[in-house]
């Protein structure tokens, strides 16, 4: 076969592509990974349906496990919500990483000439989107089932900050857990002790907004969430290489 001029052009173009802007290629790779996860999920809907059904079941179990009158329910709502998110989140984290590991796709990502952290950010953002989708569905369902208005902007802010922290460290730990023998079982064991500050702050913060407390009382929790998010995203960014490279 004769050498294809189009191919030669591409090769020349590619060599000029690599030496240029690492930031652009980083963003492009991250975006490609997020797109890939969303597209695959849109088609199979495995992950989301599992997370959703699980979340609703957890709420159901809480209903029977704690027989609550209307008054008690108001104070316990934040706790129930965050326990639900934490457990459903674990499902999502596990599945998202397992998808890469099972068909060797992680190698495919590692073979690409991109910074490893792009893989981390891509997966983390994908995981975050999935968590948001679940949260966006659980909130109205809970509101209806328990006759509580959960649509306060403050609450949504806390859910945002809390989910970011959870996913930041969850994605890193999931990358580790998926490479061990004990896999799915190990992720909650690794994750929950480390994510306690997020849970405490998120529950208290959510509760604060639901009870209509003063902003000054809720600020410490928001600050704690922000600090946690920043610290653990930074650390995950720094150590991710060691977790995926051999």
């Amino acid at each position: 076969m004769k050498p294809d001029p189009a191919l030669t052009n591409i090769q020349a173009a590619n060599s000029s592509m690599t030496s240029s802007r690492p930031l652009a290629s980083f963003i492009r790779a991250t975006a490609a990974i997020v797109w890939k996860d969303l597209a695959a999920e849109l088609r199979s809907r495995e992950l989301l349906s599992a997370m959703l059904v699980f979340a609703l079941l957890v709420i159901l179990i809480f209903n029977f496990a704690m027989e609550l009158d209307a008054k008690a329910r108001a104070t316990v709502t934040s706790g129930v919500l965050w326990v639900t998110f934490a457990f459903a989140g674990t499902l999502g984290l596990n599945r998202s990483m397992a998808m890469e590991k099972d068909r060797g796709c992680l190698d495919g990502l590692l073979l690409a000439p991109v910074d490893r952290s792009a893989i981390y950010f891509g997966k983390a953002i994908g995981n975050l989107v999935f968590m948001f989708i679940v949260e966006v569905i659980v909130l109205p369902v809970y509101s209806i089932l328990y006759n509580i208005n959960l649509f306060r902007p403050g609450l949504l802010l806390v859910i945002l900050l809390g989910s970011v922290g959870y996913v930041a460290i969850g994605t890193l730990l999931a990358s580790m857990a998926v490479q061990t023998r004990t896999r799915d079982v190990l992720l909650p064991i690794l994750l929950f002790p480390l994510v306690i500050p997020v849970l405490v702050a998120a529950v208290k913060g959510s509760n604060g907004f639901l009870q209509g407390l003063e902003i000054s009382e809720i600020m410490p929790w928001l600050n704690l969430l922000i600090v946690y998010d920043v610290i653990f995203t930074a650390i995950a960014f720094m150590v991710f290489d060691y977790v995926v490279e051999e």
Partner: protein
Amino acid sequence: METKPRLLTILDGVTIILLAVATALVFFFTPIEAVMGNVQKVFYFHVANAWVGMLGFMASAIAGIAYLRTGKRSWDIVGMASVEISVVFLLIAIVTGSIWARPVWNTWWTWDPRLTTAAIMELIYAAYLLLRQGIEDPDRRARFGAVYAILGFISVPLTFLSIRIFRTIHPVVIGNADPSAQGSFDMSPAMLRTFMFSLLVFSFIFADLLWHRIRLGHLADKVEQLKLKVTQ
């Protein structure tokens, strides 16, 4: 094969003697506290154990960073040894704390920041050990252990802080008074002496056990190597 270093044998002896002295001090040479009575004596070893338990945390995080940077197996052994030892010390601290709390606070447990954080630390240690158990490749085991040790170490202050704020904003009252206030006391010079001495003794015990464990780790590696030589 390597023989046990002389210094280690001496350290063993010294540590045992120190422990005996400390025990004697606690029971025979320190006054009995006025309010709590004899149970207060648990305090000397309890705090020392807790201190050593936390020491292990720091040691494993530092060893973790060192391992990631240098890739030397020795750092991994140090990190693992620290966790293995400290998980026991911390457990002893929690249990002795419980024993002390029962008569003094009238409860086996409270959810105050220090205890809760100690319990969480213990769970992080356990998670670390479970993580290592699930990995076969020694290099990966070391890397993941190092990463988790670092993550664990950094999360602990944040955890403590979050529970502290929790308590300040919503002070939970147990019984009639704030329990932590109820348990405090002033130390006489004799008590202080016993206290500091206990801290010293347990640091010695930590160092001694750590050395033994590190040695054990290296010897285990040697055994692996020899096994391979024989089977090939």
